[in-house]
């Protein structure tokens, strides 16, 4: 549905931002043309608002109000701030790819640690390479643009228009990576916008782990991050994906992950949102081959006035696939958690096994959680189920723990950890699971 709107003042402002940024955006000729088309697709709707069904709980037009100008490329000072922000993330044993304010920073990355069987290029270098025009053309999800940007929505279209950099990773068929690939997004500027787009292709029978971290340097405030990750998982391949979003407390993060899963493949994707005042993480997962399994789990840890929206679209397009979605959100103060889980089982997708469970824990009177499971089932030989609960901490459990010596805060922390535990336990990699647990523990400790 296109809502034709007269160009508002804010609409003109965004146009100006795009025009001003154009020279910085890598790619000329055909690529520049596609960026223009993508921007037009964004403009047709503009910032999504609550009359769009997918955005009914997260009216970006009201909550975000404006699109900020593109962040300048990082200078030496920004690099320094970013390095400091990396902190303990540097000790994660991985192949580290650091994007600072939307630009790949080789000096803070360790591409030397790349294992054989993996190829990494920067989006910028591929787009600027004139000889790659045809390939560059494919990077921007043409199908979506042909559909007027509607398939993935205006924020993904805006991402296509404004992406400054990202990483393009190809894991060769049969390769089994020992170390995770770690994409670290660091924001160092205030009141600016960052757009990144990355691609991950896992070849047939290959196995890889992808970790994404979003952090802010000291002093980086009120920025907007828009990231898109497009993943294609080959037949018989396995991917463990963990995303930890810990942007600054007043930042906006609107991100998208698009997964296409081949036959007999396994995808385990986990997202933890603890940062940002406003965030939307949307996952599009499509089964393109039979006999595959997807686990898509997430945890929201929210306080203050945070608004975090996780929206998943899962398409059982082929038969004999299984999917599990476990979502847990912990909401304190006046925060607001949103989970929308839409599953479509296409007419030919017989023997589909799909389960979704979303639970919200409200820790205060003003906390709010919206859970919207949506199942559209067009095949008749399937097993599909969903559940959604919202509640407070169990008083009898709290008393039991207190009667054993735990203070009120300690008792709450133990129960909250148990609550999010089921979602975090699903992470197969020990190291990444520990990292997620550590982040959750820090959030709990900060409650005081």
């Amino acid at each position: 549905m296109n809502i034709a709107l007269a160009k508002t003042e804010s609409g003109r402002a965004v146009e100006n931002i795009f025009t001003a940024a154009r020279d910085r955006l890598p790619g000329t000729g055909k690529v520049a043309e596609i960026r223009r088309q993508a921007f037009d697709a964004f403009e047709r709707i503009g910032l999504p608002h609550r009359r769009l069904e997918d955005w009914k709980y997260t009216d970006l037009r009201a909550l975000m109000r404006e699109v900020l100008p593109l962040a300048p490329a990082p200078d030496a000072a920004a690099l320094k701030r970013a390095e400091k922000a990396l902190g303990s993330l540097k000790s994660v044993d991985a192949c580290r790819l650091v994007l600072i304010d939307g630009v790949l920073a080789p000096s803070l990355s360790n591409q030397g640690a790349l294992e054989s069987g993996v190829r990494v290029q920067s989006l910028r270098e591929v787009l600027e390479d004139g000889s790659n025009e045809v390939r560059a053309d494919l990077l921007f999800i043409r199908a979506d643009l042909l559909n007027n940007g509607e398939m993935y929505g205006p924020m993904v279209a805006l991402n296509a228009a404004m992406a400054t950099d990202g990483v393009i990773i190809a894991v060769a068929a049969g390769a089994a990576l020992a170390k995770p690939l770690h994409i670290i997004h660091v924001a160092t500027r205030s009141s600016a916008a960052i757009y990144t787009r990355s691609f991950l292709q896992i070849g047939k029978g290959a196995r890889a782990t992808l970790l994404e971290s979003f952090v802010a340097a000291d002093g980086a405030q009120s920025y907007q991050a828009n990231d898109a990750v497009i993943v294609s998982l080959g037949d018989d391949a396995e991917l463990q994906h963990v995303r930890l979003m810990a942007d600054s407390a007043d930042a906006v993060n609107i991100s998208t992950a698009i997964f296409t899963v081949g036959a007999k493949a396994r995808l385990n994707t986990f997202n933890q949102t603890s940062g940002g005042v406003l965030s939307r993480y949307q996952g599009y997962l499509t089964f393109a081959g039979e006999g595959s399994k997807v686990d898509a789990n997430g945890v929201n840890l929210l306080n203050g006035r945070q608004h975090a929206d996780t929206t998943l679209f899962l398409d059982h397009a082929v038969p004999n696939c299984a999917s599990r979605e476990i979502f847990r959100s912990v909401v304190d103060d006046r925060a607001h958690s949103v989970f929308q889980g839409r599953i479509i089982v296409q007419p030919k997708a017989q023997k589909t096994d799909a389960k979704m469970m979303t639970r919200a824990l409200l820790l205060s009177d003003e906390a709010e959680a919206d859970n919207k499971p949506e199942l559209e089932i067009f095949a008749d030989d399937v097993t599909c189920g969903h559940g959604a609960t919202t509640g407070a901490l169990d008083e009898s459990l709290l008393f039991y723990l207190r009667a054993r010596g735990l203070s009120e805060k300690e008792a709450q922390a133990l129960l909250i950890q148990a609550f999010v535990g089921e979602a975090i336990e699903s992470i197969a990699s020990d190291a990444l699971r520990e990292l997620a647990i550590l982040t959750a523990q820090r959030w709990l400790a900060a409650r005081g």
Partner: protein
Amino acid sequence: MSLLEVKDLQVRVEDREILHGLSLTVNKGEVHAIMGPNGSGKSTLSHVIAGKPGYEVTGGEILFGGEDLLAMSPDQRSAKGVFLAFQYPVEIPGVTTMTFLRTALNAQRKARGESEFLVPEFLKKAYAVAERLNIPREMLKRGVNVGFSGGEKKRNEILQMALFEPALCILDEMDSGLDIDALRVAADGVNALRSPDRAMVVITHYQRLLNYIIPDFVHVMSKGRVVKSGGKELALELEASGYAQFEDAA
């Protein structure tokens, strides 16, 4: 100085007075049994001593080691040495028994200014205690009480008692839901913890438990008060005559 002194305790739950001036004195080394029919207020007494919310003390006081117990939070009471073995221990999925035990013991020790146990030391200690109680290590890796039978839940309470070494153990209807064998195992565990420095208050309906955990004193409660106290023979008398005579006396 007595370990526990309950003086003229009056307690209201919602809009009903449950305890009407209950008095009880317990010294170290003693085992007291509290018996009475349903509704006599036995569980209310144990809950008020442990600090469960929802109970309003409208009169009287409770001194523990000479200190005002009612002024302390439940965790403070636990650190001071009060332990309530719950009648219906709760299940806590997602929290392993081992983690719970270590966190609880360390919380109590920290409150007392004692050093906390590190994981390896604690594991050793916990395994040793579990072995003495015939609790398999595998059980300690499961969620607290998750999937435990009634007997296993009660044994888990006793395991905690053995680990925390409280000064005052209140066993709230420990025999409920247990068959004879489970009862014997539980009672053995409790008896092994009897010591001159420890006091126990055994709350029960039935005399049978007291064949295994032999009390020094027996008190009969009816309608929110202690109506008769005596030695262990009183329990046998009760079994013969029932509670009815005490209902009228209350």
